[in-house]
């Protein structure tokens, strides 16, 4: 398997790894080892802004690299349901092979699971 330089950089030097705790921290996870990928995000949200993000991941280098990039780029952004970049944009940025696009959907599901608690409930 060949990886882009960006994928290898984020895979090998993944920062923003770990957990957050305290009020205003929302956790979401998706996937499983049986699926070949599992991702968890902890998002610290205050006044509609993501103050900090951490991740944990089990999976291939693409799964780890993209999760690390998302966590790194989340801080300072608005707390929105969408990832900092769309799945299609992330796929292009990290040159994710077609057969692995499902891993990016697991990352998106983990993000949405964390945001479900962070966003004001309508109705």
């Amino acid at each position, binding site marked *: *398997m060949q*990886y882009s330089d960006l994928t*290898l950089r984020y*895979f*090998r030097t*993944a920062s923003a*790894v*770990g*957990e957050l705790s305290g009020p205003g921290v929302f956790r979401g*996870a998706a*996937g*499983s*080892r*049986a699926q*070949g*990928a*599992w991702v*968890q995000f902890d998002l610290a949200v205050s006044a509609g802004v993501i103050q900090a993000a951490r991740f*944990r*991941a*089990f*999976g*291939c*280098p693409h799964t*780890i690299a993209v999760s690390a990039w998302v966590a790194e780029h989340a801080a300072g952004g608005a707390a929105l349901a969408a990832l900092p970049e769309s799945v299609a944009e992330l796929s292009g940025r990290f040159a994710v092979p077609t057969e692995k696009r499902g891993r990016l959907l697991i990352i998106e599901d983990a993000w949405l699971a964390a945001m479900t608690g962070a966003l004001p409930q309508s109705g």
Partner: protein
Amino acid sequence: MSRPVYLDYAATTPVDPRVAAAMANCLAVNGEFGNPASASHDYGEAASALIETARTQVAARVGAIPQEVVWTSGATEADNLAIFGVAHYYRDQGRHIVTARTEHRAVLDPCRELERRGWRVTYLSPDSSGVIDASQVAGALQADTVLVSVMHVNNEIGTIQDIAAIARVCAAHGGAKLHVDAAQSVGKCTVDFAAAGAALMSLSAHKVYGPKGVGALLVSRRGVQLSALQFGGGQERGLRSGTLATHQAVGMGLAFELANDAEVDAQRLSALRERLWRGLAALGGAVRNGRAEHCVPQLLNVSFEGVEGESLLADVRPHIAVSTGAACSSISGEPSYVLRALGHDERLSESSLRFGFGRFTSESDIDRAIAAVAQAVLRLRSLSGSCSTAI
């Protein structure tokens, strides 16, 4: 930065410099470049003589006689010639084949192709260390079984099969010819074609410091017949037409002659293997695939709990050259079917590394490998956190 430590000797080995020199002597204008089939001049006769010397070297190394050696392009072609050759020649006597789930794809794929053509194939499952018991073969034989194909040394975990016991079962049956894929055997353990009692045996040069692109099929003089798969020239007693590659045969012959050195090296390699295993076992959650007493000393296959295989391989790649299984499986990226056949679940099968040692492996290489794998395993487990064991 230095090159990664090479620990993939089961995939291929570097050519011994003495072998390379002998091969080079067969290529250029001042060497023996003649067509070995050209009996009308000295160039051809000189090349033919080299081919026959190489044939004798190969035969001597594996307990065969020179007339039993049929040159091929490698073990894959030898496996195909054995399986399709027997199946076609004996098609009126029976259309049943017995093999094992842990065979190389060079055996499994021809068997699957024969299934598509109407043959029946029984795939035996080994025990958890990869051993096929002769009684399993006996139980699988049917009245119309024409071929049993079992490898000598498994290419992923190094398990050695008791070929002589399986040969006795086939002999008692009468109609079942035993083919042995021994591509991984020479230089790793004793190979004695005559004593083993097999009808056919596939050999490879590049696993034993010879060149890629050449191998041989041993065809016993004791009553086995084959149909040829290719035609045009009638070389190799009509079994494998085509101009023989003098330099390749010379390389294989010398490599096999020199392979005696590798057996002497077994004690050193066993020590290296156990040194590596102790280092990896200390990480915790390491599972040794295959039992040491059943395996050749040049191979160690380990699965790591809580680690994803592709990431493990990517993490260690700057430091060591290893594989997750057979080289062809590395291309497909599929979990090891060999480990799954041993009863491992898919995730554990995916997180395995195959370490292959050889003539040029040192203790410091092993220590570098332990350090690289330890760093990778601990980092990847840390990335997934304690949750990784529960998900």
